C-alpha cells in the first residue's frame, strides 16, 4: 500500500524534493565550512589581535586597548629592518638565479626534440620531490670544507639549486603552451634562440614566469632550515631565523611584539600570493600546476 502510493507520487514530487534537498544540503555544507573556518581562524585571530594589544598573552581575547606600541617597538634596525633586508637579498638573489636558469633550461627542453629530454625531465621530476631537509647535514659539512659556510652567496646558490627542479618543471610546462609557429617566423628572419626566447617566448608566457617567480620567492621567504644551517653570524640572519630571538635572547617573551613582527614578516608573501592568484583569475591552484 505504502509502496504503491510512493511510486505514484514520485514523478510529481521529484523536482521540488530534489530542489529542497539541494537547499538543505547547501545549508549543511555552509555550516560545515563555517565550522572549519572558525577552527582555522583562531590562531590567525590571535596574531592579529595580540599585535595591537598592550597586554597580549597566549590566548585569543579582545584587546585591552588599541595600541601600535608593539609595531613601534619592533620597527628597529636590528629587530626588523636588517633581518628583512637579509631575507630580501637571500630570497631575491636566489629567485632571480632560479628564474633565469629555469627559463634558459626550459627553452631547449620545450623547443627541441632530443633523446636526452626524457631522462633529464624524469630526473628533474624525481628531484622535485626529494626531501631537502635530509641533505642539509651533508650540505653543511660540504660548505665547511669549501668555505661557503656563513656566506650569503653560498646560501643563495643552495637555495636556487633546491628550487630549480620544480622551477624548471613548471617553466617547461608553461613554455609548452606557447605556440612554436611564432618563433619559427623569427628564426627565418635570423633571430638566435636566445633572442627568440627573450623577445618572443618569455613575454608571451608572462603569467607563467610570474607564477614561477612568486612561488620560488614565497618558498624561500618562509624557509627556516636552510639559512638556520648555512648561516652562522647573527647579522646575516634572515627574518625566518631571527624571529626565534623573541624567545631566549630577550628574556621574557613579549607576545605582542612577536605577533607584530610575525605580521610584518608574513605580509609580503601573502600579498604576493594574492597578486598571483588574482592575476590568473583564481585558477592558480598549485595542484593544477603540479599535475602538469
Amino acid at each position: 500500500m505504502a509502496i504503491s502510493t510512493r511510486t505514484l507520487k514520485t514523478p510529481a514530487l521529484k523536482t521540488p524534493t530534489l530542489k529542497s534537498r539541494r537547499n538543505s544540503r547547501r545549508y549543511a555544507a555552509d555550516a560545515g565550512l563555517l565550522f572549519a573556518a572558525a577552527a582555522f581562524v583562531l590562531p590567525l585571530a590571535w596574531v592579529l589581535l595580540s599585535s595591537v594589544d598592550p597586554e597580549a598573552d597566549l590566548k585569543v581575547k579582545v584587546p585591552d586597548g588599541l595600541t601600535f606600541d608593539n609595531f613601534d617597538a619592533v620597527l628597529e634596525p636590528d629587530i626588523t629592518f636588517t633581518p628583512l633586508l637579509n631575507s630580501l637579498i637571500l630570497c631575491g638573489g636566489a629567485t632571480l638565479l632560479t628564474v633565469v636558469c629555469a627559463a634558459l633550461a626550459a627553452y631547449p627542453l620545450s623547443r627541441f626534440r632530443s633523446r636526452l629530454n626524457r631522462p633529464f625531465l624524469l630526473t628533474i621530476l624525481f628531484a622535485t620531490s626529494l626531501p631537502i631537509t635530509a641533505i642539509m647535514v651533508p650540505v653543511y659539512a660540504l660548505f665547511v670544507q669549501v668555505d661557503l659556510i656563513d656566506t650569503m652567496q653560498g646560501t643563495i646558490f643552495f637555495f636556487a639549486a633546491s628550487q630549480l627542479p620544480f622551477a624548471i618543471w613548471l617553466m617547461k610546462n608553461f613554455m609548452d603552451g606557447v605556440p612554436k609557429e611564432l618563433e619559427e617566423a623569427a628564426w627565418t628572419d635570423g633571430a638566435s634562440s636566445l633572442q627568440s626566447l627573450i623577445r618572443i617566448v618569455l613575454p608571451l608566457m608572462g603569467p607563467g614566469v610570474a607564477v614561477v617567480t612568486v612561488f620560488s620567492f614565497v618558498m624561500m621567504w618562509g624557509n627556516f632550515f636552510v639559512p638556520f644551517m648555512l648561516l652562522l653570524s647573527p647579522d646575516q640572519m634572515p627574518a625566518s631565523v631571527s624571529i626565534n630571538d623573541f624567545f631566549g635572547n630577550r628574556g621574557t617573551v613579549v607576545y605582542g611584539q612577536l605577533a607584530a613582527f610575525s605580521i610584518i614578516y608574513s605580509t609580503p608573501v601573502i600579498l604576493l600570493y594574492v597578486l598571483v592568484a588574482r592575476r590568473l583569475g583564481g585558477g592558480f591552484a598549485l595542484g593544477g600546476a603540479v599535475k602538469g
Partner: protein
Amino acid sequence: MTAAPPAGPGVVKTAPGPTAPPPPPAPRGRSALRTLSRALPVSPALVLLILFLAGPIAYCAYIAFTDLQLTGQAEDSFVGFENFRTAFQDEAFLNAVWLTLVFTILSSLIGQNTLGLSLAVLMQRASKPVRTLTGGIVITAWVLPEVVAGFLLYAFFRREGTLNAILDWLHLPSQNWLFTLPILAVSFANVWRGTAFSMLVYSAALNEIPKEITEAAEVDGAGGWRRMWHITLPMIRRSIGTNLMLNTLQTLSVFGLIWVMTRGGPGNRSQTLPLFMYEQAFQKSMIGYGTAVALLLLVVGSLFSVVYMRLLRTEV
C-alpha cells in the same frame, strides 16, 4: 651519442623555408655542434644542480659510512655499515622512526588528506561567500611562513593558550598539550598548515567531474555517501594518489614547525627523524651518524618519489 635521429625531423621542417641557411644533408660534425649549442642554455641550471644538489647527495652517501665528527678529529675514517648498525640498536632512533610514522599518518594521510577532501566536497555545494571566506582562511594558513605558523600554534596549544581557554569555557578538562601530547599537537599544527594544498588539489579534481554524471546518479536515487564512494572517489583517484605522495613527502621533511613548537621535546617525545638527525649531527657533533640517518630519510623519500613519478608517468 649525438641526437642524430631526433634532429632529422627538425632539419626536414626548416628545409622548405626558402631562406633556411643550413643545407638539408647536414654533415655529422655540424649536427653534433648544433645539438651542443642547443643544449647550451641548460648548462647554468645543470652546473647549479650538480654542484649544490647532486654533490651533497653523493657526499651524503659517502659520509654516512664514516665516523666524521664536528670537532676534535683530524681525519674521519671509513666505518662501513657501523652507523646504520648503531642506528637500529639506538632506542632514540627507533623512537624517532616511530614518531615520524605517527606524525605522517596522523597529519598527512588522515588529517590533511581527509580534511582537504572534505573541505573540497563541501565547497562544491556551499554558497559562494562561505566558500570564499573559508578558502581564504585555509589558504592564509598555508601561505604563512613555516616559523610563523609554528608560533601561532605554539600559542594555540600552550597551557595559557586559546585551546585551553575554549575547553575551560566548555567546562571540559584542559591540559598542557605541548607537554602531555606533543606529537598530537605538532600533528594538528601540520594539518592546520598543510590542508590547503590538498583542498586545492581536490577542488581542481572535483571541478573536472562532469555534472551530468553526479546528477544522473542523484536522480537514480544514489545517496550522498554512495555517490561519493562509487562515483566521485574512483574518478579522482589519480589526484588522490598524487596528493598523498606530495603530502607525505612534505610531512617527512617538516623541521621548522616542530622545532619552534617543541624543539622535539619534552624529552624526545616529538622528535621526528629530521629533528633527531639535527640533534645527532650538531648537538652531539656526530656528523657521520646524523648523515646516516639523513641517508635513510633520503632513501625513503626517493621511494615515495619514484611512486609519485609512476603516477605521473603518462604526462612526461
